[in-house]
């Protein structure tokens, strides 16, 4: 980049402080300040100003509010809790039905008897 070019940017920085630059020129000025050629003391002031404005803008960016966010999180947590409980219940089934009717009896005993009988006449 030539000395003339640097003068061009310097002049644009000057116009920026006079509020005479367009949005497009400000955009180009920002991009230029990030280049190697702009690492010059004469651009320190404009760089500091634009950097400060950028940081301020980011920090004070209005947050987008999600009105149902809390509700959605609560619903998800409830679903997780329910699934956890349901899974626990499903993993520990023990039921006996006789003629299609649930019967209160020890399923373990029936299971053990059935398996013992199943293997009673077989080879090991």
């Amino acid at each position, binding site marked *: 980049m030539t000395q003339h070019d640097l003068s061009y940017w310097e002049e644009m920085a000057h116009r920026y402080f006079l509020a005479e630059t367009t949005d497009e020129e400000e955009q180009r000025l920002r991009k230029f300040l990030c280049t190697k050629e702009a690492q010059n003391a004469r651009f320190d002031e404009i760089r500091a100003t634009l950097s400060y404005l950028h940081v301020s803008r980011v920090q004070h960016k209005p947050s987008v509010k999600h009105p149902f966010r809390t509700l959605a999180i609560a619903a998800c947590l409830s679903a997780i809790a329910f699934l956890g409980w349901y899974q626990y219940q499903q993993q520990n089934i023990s039921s006996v039905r006789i003629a299609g009717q649930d019967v209160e009896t020890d399923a*373990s005993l029936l299971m053990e008897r059935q398996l013992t009988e199943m293997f009673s006449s*077989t080879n090991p």
Partner: protein
Amino acid sequence: MKKILTIILVMLSPHLGLWAQKGLSIQTAFDELAVKKNATEVVMSGKRLKNFHLTYFHSLEIKNPSAAEHQRIASLVQADAAQAITAEETAEHRFYELPQHKGLHAYILYRNNGPTLTLIYIEGKATLKQIKQFFQKKQSEK
């Protein structure tokens, strides 16, 4: 939000593969015949099976089965036997080892000694040999 949905899906996933027996013909036997007055159905899963290294037990025991009931169950068992990787068959019993499901062994055990017909589906880490030995030993201790 995506993370929460992922957690929910992960929690749901075990249910999707629960009980491989659902894809077997013998499921029809459990559905159709468990309501008969001479039938006893036992379903177990979870920590009470841990001692046997099993994860799922489902049985159907029919006292004094009719010829039709016997025929029905035998044909359903025979249909599933087609996919068995090992089989042990005698006049009184038939044991079939099915392809492993999620790293677990799955077996169909069928026994008909005349007055009692028993159909069992089991899943677990234990092999048939280990299950046999366990219950045969148990019987000899009585």
